[in-house]
């Protein structure tokens, strides 16, 4: 790895001044919601670290996560791929195919044992002997386990990898299974959403590169910095909710005045995501701003919670003091799911060694 360049060197030789570089670091800190003092730490990391290999595997999915990732505006995805990480395997964009592609997995596993990130988009199906998702003539689940065995950490991109998503909706004919149920011995970060917001995806990666650790996670394994609050908590239409001003029908006067979409089935009150703050596609809009309620696409099992146009009635929706874990458990509504959530939370705690102090403020009511 003698030829490996640091991120800072890459930026400098592209004609970026040190002053601009430091500005970039401070903007990155702001984008990540970090205190300004941490900009220096980001700068130091960027100056000294080689690019971390990322192996991006695809199971049963629709590729919306990859498509979202390439929409990232800050940082630009071209900068991420050329200068920040080494995206050595991603079957959506990689030049090679067939055995030349498979050879890359072997090479990176050996050369960077314990030092590469496994990013998973989609999930493994276990019915049909695992053969409803075939890669290289074998079940995808085998490839997933092999590549996971030597990785440093796993990122579960999107709701497929995190929860199962649409193919796992009832009756889940392929037994599509979220990644954490198959890979249980590695630090794992869930970045749910269908898809996740582009800048959240690159934000999570940049955080890991900068601080050399996984971000602080909530009990369900999601980064608190992006999934710590409900969409409803920061929704710009919230004052209309509080004032009792609602859209009652599509395209009615309330819709034209931008009233609250709660009565149209908006799942913002029970959905933990950054849509109402980061917004989508470089901050252009987000579903509620464009007139449709949130469908709750970053929540576990959101496909099986009734129609997208039904009112949210099965959980406590008032006030901003409730937290992701409590609402998640309450909304799940059954003991079985709550127990699962607890088991996952325990597993996350176990793997969080080295992730710094474990702040619990979001866990308090």
């Amino acid at each position, binding site marked *: 790895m003698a030829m490996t360049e640091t991120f800072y060197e890459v930026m400098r030789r592209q004609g970026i001044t040190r002053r601009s570089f430091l500005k970039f670091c401070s903007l990155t800190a702001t984008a990540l919601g970090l205190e300004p003092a941490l900009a220096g730490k980001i700068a130091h990391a960027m100056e000294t670290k080689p690019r971390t290999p990322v192996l991006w595997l695809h199971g049963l999915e629709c590729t919306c996560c990859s498509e979202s990732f390439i929409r990232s505006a800050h940082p630009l*995805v071209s900068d991420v791929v*050329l200068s920040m990480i080494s995206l050595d395997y991603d079957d959506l964009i990689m030049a090679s195919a067939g055995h030349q592609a498979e050879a890359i997995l072997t090479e990176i596993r050996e050369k960077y044992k314990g030092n590469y990130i496994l990013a998973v988009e989609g999930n493994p199906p276990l019915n049909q002997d695992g053969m*409803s998702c075939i890669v290289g003539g074998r079940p995808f689940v085998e490839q997933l386990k092999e590549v996971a065995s030597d990785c440093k950490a796993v990122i579960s991109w999107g709701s497929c990898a995190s929860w199962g998503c649409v193919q796992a909706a009832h009756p889940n004919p392929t037994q*599509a299974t979220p990644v954490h149920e198959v890979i249980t011995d590695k630090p794992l970060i869930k970045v749910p959403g269908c898809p996740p917001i582009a800048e959240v995806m690159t934000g999570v990666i940049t955080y890991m590169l900068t601080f050399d650790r996984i971000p602080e996670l909530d009990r369900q394994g999601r980064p608190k910095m992006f999934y710590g609050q409900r969409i409803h908590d920061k929704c710009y239409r919230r004052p209309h909710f509080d004032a009792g001003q609602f859209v009652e029908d599509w395209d009615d006067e309330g819709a034209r005045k931008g009233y609250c979409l709660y009565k149209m089935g908006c799942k913002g009150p029970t959905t933990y995501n950054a849509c109402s703050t980061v917004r989508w596609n470089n901050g252009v809009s987000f579903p509620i701003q464009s007139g449709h309620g949130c469908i709750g696409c970053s929540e576990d099992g959101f496909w099986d919670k009734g*129609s997208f146009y039904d009112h949210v009635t099965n959980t406590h929706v008032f006030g901003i003091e409730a937290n992701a874990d409590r609402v998640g458990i309450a909304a799940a509504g059954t003991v079985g799911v709550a127990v699962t959530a607890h088991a996952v939370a325990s597993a996350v705690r176990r793997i969080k060694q080295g992730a710094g102090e474990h702040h619990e403020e979001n866990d308090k009511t």
Partner: protein
Amino acid sequence: MSVQTPNGFELDTSGQRIVVDPVTRIEGHMRCEVNLDENNVIRNAVSTGTMWRGLEVILRGRDPRDAWAFTERICGVCTGTHALTSVRAVEDALGIQIPENANSIRNIMQLTLQAQDHLVHFYHLHALDWVDVVSALKADPKATSELAQSISDWPLSSPGYFRDVQNRIKRFVESGQLGPFMNGYWGNPAYKLPPEANLMAVTHYLEALDFQKEIVKIHTIYGGKNPHPNWLVGGVPCAINVHEAGAVGAINMERLNLVSSIIDRTIDFIDKVYIPDLMAIASFYKDWTYGGGLSSQAVMSYGDIPDRANDSSAANQMLPRGAIINGNLAEVHDVDLRDPEQIQEFVAHSWFSYADESKGLHPWDGVTEPNFVLGPNTKGTKTRIEEIDESAKYSWIKAPRWRGHAMEVGPLARWVIGYAQGNPEFKEPVEKVLTDLQLPVSALFSTLGRTAARGLEGSWAAHKMRHFQDKLMANIKAGDSSTANIDKWDPKTWPKEAKGVGTTEAPRGALGHWIVIKDGKIDNYQAVVPTTWNGSPRDPAGNIGAFEAALLNTPVAKADEPLEILRTLHSFDPCLACSTHIMSPDGEELTRVKVR
């Protein structure tokens, strides 16, 4: 060992077998096997869809108004097109008329997808089949600048600009961490571009990567996000309010101006970067005439982009509707998606079972029961396939046929049909390309023809966005701000039973959703998608599908580097998550396998 297929192709399985799995730079999972003769020419081709998710059975019993969200997740690359098809199917079933503004906004969103998806396909999924990244390092930036300025007035074209990009690529390569370019087929003799053309194309690869995310902001404005914007049965969810208080919560003047500016920039980028690059690259590959397959024989399009709302006649569709068979361009047949004799799906070579597999079924009567079995001549095991046996079942894709014919769908099919119908919007650009490149009409029926038609369509789509945005503005100015019809929003207003069909022309081709509604719930849902047509396995009669036909008779420069195979497969822009069907409408429980 040679056999003739009913649709006129000769297959010979005697030569060396080559396996490509995974096929990369596509959506989803796919495998391809070919037999090469002693001259490394492809004499047999086998295309296998290697994933299956079961979305249609998941839809059973759900609210039809929710179906767009489920079906949208069939594919995140052609995001939105399944959702549009779905709301059209529900509206067809329930007889819902949509406002004119909703039709314009839907068309703008569908055209946004066409423009962005074609651009991303060309640069990020297909270009590396023609462009040698490593060769770009040898280019003279000054000569590259001259080349770029000779074909376009795109302003980013100075020698210094190309030198900077070249330096960036050089240092990237020298770092030893090649990322997505690792193990590419650099230096393969099938690459024909001079270093300067390679550098220009690589530069635009990066520019297009940055620009494509701008185009989709139109989805974000009207649909709230991209990928996977929001849709609505009865219209569109975004209300319009340009005059009054509260406009910040609706489509207002600022939003409309933002859409308008993105449309202008999209037209600019496609016409000044994408099209000139396409023409420049094509000019170096004029002699590579392979990959035509079914395109000169059997093509089909359902038509799309209705000019006026609620008029599904062929004459009202801006993309053509029709079918050409037996290579007879003089006759374009009408296509009727409701006719049980026209579109049928077969499963004799698919991992599904029918009671009688010699027959096909129309989608409204569709049955899809999984049956993963391998033929007796398979090499390997059930979970470690080395070579597949195409004489038996060999794909998760069904075999759809139109009146028994295997059909090609997609941009080339649409443009061939538009050309055959004499529509100047299609005929004139096609003739200009052929004249500029000094090629005969027959050159259209090739891998490169497919790639060129997609480019022309990207430009066509961008300009049509302008048409519909202007139409939207004119309608608002005339006092109509309506975006949704809620007369039949309440399921109580619905008939006890209804069935409908919705269609679009997705970026990859003809897309149809068939829905049966009973007691306010989905009783049956079937989707027949573009890659089901193009990637179909053989049917009981032995007709081969478009992928397999297109690969035949192509020479491969190096048998262990599948560059030509990728080139032709990519020209279809395969989408495997779309193409793979589902299990039985009964949705019976399958054996559960324990997590190891």
